[in-house]
């Protein structure tokens, strides 16, 4: 069994890629996807540690994070559709009103 560092590096890489996606992309859907990616990276961390410490709590929290991701995706996409319906755009730069 390889040392835990590998998993940490992997999740770190995914997280940073996700962050980069959030920053660089203007398309809100892709930004949302990147956020999913970040959450996923976190999951890897949690599961890895739960495996290495032999404690299942980490997996429980990974489950919660998945549920959270689902909720976040649903709401985010709902907002986006509403936004698109009203503003005919999905570009992040044009969502700078901070209110409606």
């Amino acid at each position: 069994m390889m040392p835990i560092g590998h998993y940490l590096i992997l999740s770190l890489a995914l997280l940073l890629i996700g962050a980069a996606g959030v920053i660089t992309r203007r398309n809100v859907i892709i930004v949302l996807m990147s956020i999913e990616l970040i959450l996923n990276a976190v999951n890897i961390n949690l599961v890895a540690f739960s495996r290495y410490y032999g404690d299942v709590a980490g997996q429980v929290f990974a489950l919660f994070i998945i549920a959270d991701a689902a909720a976040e995706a649903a709401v985010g996409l709902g907002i986006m559709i509403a936004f698109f319906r009203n503003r005919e755009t999905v570009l992040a730069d044009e969502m700078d009103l901070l209110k409606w």
Partner: protein
Amino acid sequence: MRAGGEAMNAPGYFLAHIWLIPMFPLISAAAMLFFGRLMSKEAVNLFCVGSVLLSFLHALGAMLTLFARPAEMRFYQEIFFQWVTPGAMPTGAGMVNFVADWGYLLDPLSCVMVIVVTFVGFLIHVYSIGYMAHEGGYYRFFGYLNLFMFSMLTLVLANNLLLLFVGWEGVGLCSYLLIGFYFLKKSASDAGKKAFLVNRIGDAGFLLGLMLVSTTFGTVRFTTQGLSDPSGYSGILQTLGGMMAQHQFVYGAPIFTAIGLLLFVGATGKSAQIPLYVWLPDAMEGPTPVSALIHAATMVTAGVYMVARMSAIYQLAPVALDVIAIVGTTTAIFAATMAMVQTDIKKVLAYSTVSQLGYMFMALGVGAFAAGVFHLMTHAFFKALLFLGAGSVIHSLSGEQDIRKMGGLRYAIPATSVPFMIATLAIAGIPPLSGFFSKDEILGHAFNRHLMMDRYFALWAVGLITAGLTAFYMFRLLFEVFYGMSRVPIEIEGHIHESPKTMTVPLVILAFFSIVSGWLALPVLWGEESPFQRFLEPSLRGVETDTSRIMFAHHGLLVEVALMGSSVLLAGLGFYLAHKLYIENPKLHGQIAAAWPRLHDLLVHKYYVDEIYDALFVNRIKDLSTALGLFDSKFIDGLGVDGTGWVTLFFSRISMWWDKWIVDGLVNLLGWFPRFLSMPVRMFQTGVFSTYAVFILIGLAILLGYYGHHVQTFVRSMH
């Protein structure tokens, strides 16, 4: 006797759960009034009728449990919580800390009432299913009806006068709501208001009496009998007994008279006695089941019940009793005469109700409390039956109420006409139906008092005449509606239809009871005391003193028979007259009316009482209020308010200028600084979230850099 009263006194399920009896209707009433709109009719029926049935069953169980005990132990009282506790206050019984608790008392008297209320109430609920089927606000109607049941049960089960008053007001409210049920009809809503206001007058008297009671005896609890341990509780009965024992008061003391009269004022309001009877005829605007339940069977008898409940005091107040007797008798004949000429089927019944109530009060007045309550019970059955029958008639004539437009209906709607006839016989006092026995009890007692004191002769005579009148107008009604030629308008004639089973079955049941319920007094025929009276006796006993017992002469069997004969004779006379005037030659009564126009008008206009009241009180009050209104609008508004406004305006002009130039100037200056200073910071707030993300990431980088640089030190700190 069984050894150890404990087993005897063990409450058992029904007594222990006596609080359920009012609770069922309350629950379903709440359900109706909050969620009824969402329910289907079936659900509403299930809820409301079911709840009343449940409480009837519980009441029945409680009564049987009570029966199982020896006569002296037939009290059950339970105090749930202390409700009003104003603390110590000076009373006739010295400084006591006054307590009105929320508790229920079940003794023979309230037992009879509870049974009557729940049973008749249940039947009328069932009836209403059919009657209200096509009306709007179905759930509202049933909600109010159940609320009424709750209030009435609280009234009769209350173990103290204050709680009784709560129920008293509750039934008043429900009656108001239900009279004005068709609130879109002006007459209905007016009738509701009238009932409410007239009752207020009575309630004022009642309230005064209540206060007087509480200050006199230091308690409003009727009695301490039936409590698991009476020690530490005080009841009116016991306190009164103590007072009499140490001669604090004497028989016929003015305080008793005052209490009695004040309470009786309340009774006249609730039970429609002179001078406050005027609301009851108008109350007929409400739906017929309401008239049957509230304005015939239960609520209007609350006054009778209350007086009987306070009999301990009344027995010591002869003056009050006489007043009650006189008022009752007057009301009886007065209303009977009015009933003779009414043409609205429900109005006739309304006046007959008033007159029957008069009978009951007459009974109370001559001190025959048991007889009064007995008549209350029988009357509840046959008058409810009469009203329901009338409702069924109206229903089948699709809303027609004028008896001049009826006639010959007995073949069209047999299932209604037969019970109606039975009820008529009962109320007219034809043996062996119930009305005969109860009325005969009353007249008998009146006659006995006359044997004691001559001044009671008038009462008896008038009562007897009233019996004749009752027979007359009831048979008149019967003949007008069910016999003779049909005078129904042709367009209605077509679809006369018998009412549905839900309406006719209750009629049959009530008919059965209006026949047999009188037989409780059967032994009176051979001169014994009636079992009903013996049953009620423990709760009507009052206080044992040398002078206070109301003496009834004992007359022989012969006299008894003579009395009965006389009343039956008069009833027969009434029947004969009615038959002559309305069956043999129907024109005759018209001619008679024409012969004495004055008298007829007087009767038709109900002795112009309403007009007199209007002239004396109502209009005067209206004038007063208009005057006050003028004062308000002219003086207070004109001078006070507007003047102030003008002055304020002037000053505000000045201060506005100041604000504008001085204060705002400073504020703007202050505001300008931060805006100037915040210029650089605002750069970051682009509102584009990816920029923020960049900042987050940079922050992360810095943190990690710091951590990585000092990682050794962190590790050291870890252990």
